[in-house]
């Protein structure tokens, strides 16, 4: 099986240093960069599937030139090779362009499965995997909590998280799957993996390499950020401590003052 995993480098949410720059775009220099959390679950699932069924895991990112760093981390976790689409004309790319570019790059690989995170921690629109699936005309299995391919039958089953539990859904391969944390925690790179990753290939592609009109000229994106405000400040809260019975009484007083009990 060949599994392409869409991985996006994002500001590390745990560093809590994300900010928007004066151009209203994410200030990518302000924070350390990690693989988007849901993409890591996708990667872990892909690695396990290839361990069970054979094949290779291909990492695909669209990112600035230093996107090779997060691809290298994915390779050190066990992915076999990487593709980075990077181009100055893609800085600040909108959703349609991102989807077009990723679909064009994914189409260069004859994949069985295309995995992506359910959403990203920075953009959070949660639409890219579905958009790539639609452009490539492959079925989408979204919000995956478990992935069970049957390569002999050419089909894949997914547990799709629902508000009540899950739906068991199935489609022919090739197929696209959006992935959730319910797939299980990602592994850490091993020392051997880190060594092996050094010799694994990362192909770097520009828009020209992919061909076609994938991005609008001059960054004429479909959406624009008009203004950035600070969120409305919450009034400074009260901090209480002491014996539990006393704090419980104060809590109920607070709730009563707000009409909440």
């Amino acid at each position, binding site marked *: 099986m060949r599994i392409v995993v869409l991985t996006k480098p994002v500001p590390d949410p745990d560093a809590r240093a994300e900010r928007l720059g004066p151009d209203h775009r994410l200030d990518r220099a302000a924070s350390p960069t990690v693989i988007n959390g849901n993409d890591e679950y996708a990667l872990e699932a892909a690695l396990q599937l290839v361990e069970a069924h054979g094949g290779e895991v291909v990492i695909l990112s669209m990112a600035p030139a230093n996107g090779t760093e997060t691809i290298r981390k994915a390779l050190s976790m066990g992915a076999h090779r990487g593709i980075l689409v990077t181009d100055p004309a893609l800085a600040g790319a909108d959703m349609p362009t991102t989807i077009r570019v990723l679909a064009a790059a994914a189409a260069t690989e004859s994949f069985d499965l295309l995995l992506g995170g359910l959403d990203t921690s920075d953009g959070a629109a949660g639409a890219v*995997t579905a958009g790539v699936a639609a452009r490539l005309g492959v079925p989408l299995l979204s919000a995956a909590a478990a992935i069970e391919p049957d390569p002999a039958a050419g089909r894949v089953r997914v547990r799709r998280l629902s508000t009540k539990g899950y739906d068991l859904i199935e489609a022919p391969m090739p197929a696209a799957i959006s992935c959730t944390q319910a797939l299980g925690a990602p592994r850490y790179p091993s020392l051997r993996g880190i060594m092996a990753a050094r010799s694994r290939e990362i192909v770097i592609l520009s828009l020209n390499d992919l061909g076609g009109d994938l991005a609008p000229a001059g960054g004429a994106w479909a959406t624009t950020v008009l203004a950035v405000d600070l969120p409305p400040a919450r009034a400074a809260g009260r901090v209480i401590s002491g014996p*539990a019975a006393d704090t419980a009484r104060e809590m109920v007083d607070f709730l009563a003052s707000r009409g909440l009990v």
Partner: protein
Amino acid sequence: MPATILAVGEIADGRLTKLSTEVATLARGLAEVAGGTALGLVVDPAPDAAAGQLAAFVPRVIVVTSPALTGEVAAPHVAGEIVRLLSEGVTHVVLGATTDGRDIAGMLVGLTGMGMLANADEASWADEGPVIRSSVLGGKAVTNSALTSGSGLITLRPGGVTAEEAAAAGVVETREPSAPVTPAAIVLDRVAEAGAVVSLEDASVVVVGGRGIGSAEGFALVEDLAEVLGGVAGATRASVDAGWVPYSRQVGQTGRVVKPALYLGLGVSGAMQHRVGMQGSGAIVAVNRDRDAPIAEIADLFVLGDLFEVGPALVAEIRARRGG
């Protein structure tokens, strides 16, 4: 071209979801300011009840039904209907920011190249198009965003718009189904899990157990408090990842976004991904042993203490006052 704004309805248990009533209210409100028209869409094997509910909000509802929809994932079918409606003059599409809404939006962006305004907390009509306000980066900033052309998509977060029915009910019109935009996955089974709840978004009180609850047994305290407060018990990603609580109860970026009148967090640290899902709550109360927990930054009342002491004392205090 006058704006024609489509509200996409979602159905749960045969009824229109609360978020869909907010989506429909927003679509109608935008159309009124724009001098255009609003309409609704319901695609389901048993759409009648929900179509009637949607017609209370918009002047025209298009209903598409087919037996094939019973056994297939809906998104590519719904996207197929919207592609047809776009060719008939729909300029803007409003969807809920749910898994289905985002899947449909993504498919439409991929196929049409339309712009997408994601995760609106509210939206207005200014000049020639919609402008959305959206909390981004875990609540660190609020952006105002617009489309640069005369058409596009909006996904709406729950709770940002107050649902309000129209003065007069709309007409319902049934259509033959369009082709799905991709092959649809088939549904083999729909499994309900014990402990799964559907009403987190609608609850006026949400009590959340974080890593500090320590075990599945610890979640019983969270449920006790939820019960005595007339609310629903939720969880953070940490307690779901630990296997103490089913995923369907998770509050946060991946999971449910809640805006209750009261949020009570027990042993919740307040990681960014969790705050995205609860920071719109009316009152935020947190019990934590760590004074430096990030949730202290947004809590109206922060109780520094052991949740296993404070929690039962709170249950007892509420019961005592009600009894007295």
